[in-house]
């Protein structure tokens, strides 16, 4: 008998719940009109950043393209007259990219970075192949202060070993410790 009462109650109570829900505000975010702001570490469109002096950060080391699990990054390395490497062309195929962020993780110069710009869908796949011009931005991205050549690398900003946190290059011909 108590079971019957429990069953009747259990049948009728949900009706009140659903009725009361009609008058609550829906939780839906109506996408094209309302957009939610993604977190700053959201992984979407990839950009190539510049250092604070305005130079390209990318040194065309191929680490990102090696790290990429879907092989969507390709580039051609080149060297300018003082030996500084740069990418002659740099291409990311966003129709293959899975936005895993491994490229940004692999990058030694913080050149390649993920941004929260997620609206890149397109009707033509070829429009999703971004060239270097499309990828380069005039900003430092997540760290505007960082310039790889002020900390390491060949003498582009300062002569080799001339940076504050650097020691002189080791004289490999000397036996002294």
């Amino acid at each position, binding site marked *: 008998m108590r079971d019957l009462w429990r069953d009747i109650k259990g*049948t009728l109570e*949900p*009706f009140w*719940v*659903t*009725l009361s*829900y*009609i008058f*609550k*505000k*829906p*939780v*839906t975010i*109506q996408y094209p009109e309302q957009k939610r702001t993604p977190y700053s570490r959201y992984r979407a469109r990839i950009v190539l950043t510049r250092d604070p002096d305005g130079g390209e950060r990318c040194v065309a080391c191929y680490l990102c393209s090696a790290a990429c699990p879907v092989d969507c990054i390709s580039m051609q390395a080149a060297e300018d007259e003082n030996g500084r490497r740069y990418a002659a062309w740099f291409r990311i195929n966003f129709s293959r990219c899975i936005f895993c962020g491994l490229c940004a993780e692999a990058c030694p110069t913080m050149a390649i970075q993920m941004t929260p710009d997620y609206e890149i869908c397109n009707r033509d796949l070829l429009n999703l192949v971004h060239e270097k011009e499309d990828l380069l931005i005039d900003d430092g991205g997540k760290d505007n202060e960082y310039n790889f050549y002020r900390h390491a690398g060949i003498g582009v900003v300062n002569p080799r070993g001339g940076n504050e946190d650097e020691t002189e290059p080791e004289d490999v011909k000397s036996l002294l410790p």
Partner: protein
Amino acid sequence: MNDILITLLIIIIKLGLIFAVVLTMAAYLVLAERKILARMQLRYGPNRVGPFGMFQPVADLIKMLTKEDVCPAGADKYLFLFAPGLAAVTALMSLAVVPFGPTIEIFGQQVPQVVCDLNIGVLYFLGLSSLAVYGIALGGWASNSKYALLASIRGLAQLISYELSMGLAVVPIIMAARSFSLTDIVMAQESLPFVLIYPETFLIFFVSVAAESKRIPFDLPEAENELVAGFHTEYSGMRFGLFFVGEYINMIILGSMTTIFFLGGWHGPLLPPIFWFLFKVLGVAFVFIWMRGTMPRFRYDQLMHFGWKVLMPIALLDVVVRGGFMVWSLGG
């Protein structure tokens, strides 16, 4: 001669009106259901086509009409093509006996607001609701699909089971109104709707009606998670649409029958009778939708158990007790 012509004209006009109103109502009932269900789940529901999604039914219609009409290989072609029409037509035919309001006078003509006031209207309705099962049974059988076949078997068994208790629940009403005519039944409720006099009969009737409409919690013939889409798994385009529209017309009809049998038909204060009728039908339809948003689906054995071992005996007992009481109070 002239009289016959005028009568014929009036009937045709009434038929046209009913077709237009009911089909539009069925289309917008779909929208209303989607909207209300969505709000119950804290969503908005369709709101893209036109203001508040009001043109969604039109968009759906265009989509269904332009879709490919697929007939699966190995299907019984003629039955397959015929079944959806049967489902929709049997649903529509019941509307012929539904009285929407009292007899009114237009240009000196007595016009009853019912297409045909059959003196066996109740039996006609019960007969047609039994026929409606053929749409499901044939459609599912002709599809040459396991899911559809299982669904049509379920549908058959379910409808036959619940038809019984529905028929039995109508018996006290017929005894009270002393007529099989739906108009007379409504007239008998002029002072008090039958739901207040026969609350337990109303409950039995309402549960059976919910089962007849093949909707949650009795939607076993189209249990999505077991049978894909049940008997209309193989249907596409407007043939699926016909099944769908048939289901919602059926909902309107069962709503009107509940209104006629228990809620006092068109009787009500202040407003014109036809509005009262419409309000009551929409109210019942809302309860159906509300039920869908609230309840889970029965298991098949629970459904059969409930129909045969609970609802049927109670309905029988109700008929006997109410009938006995009526005989006793009449001093028989």
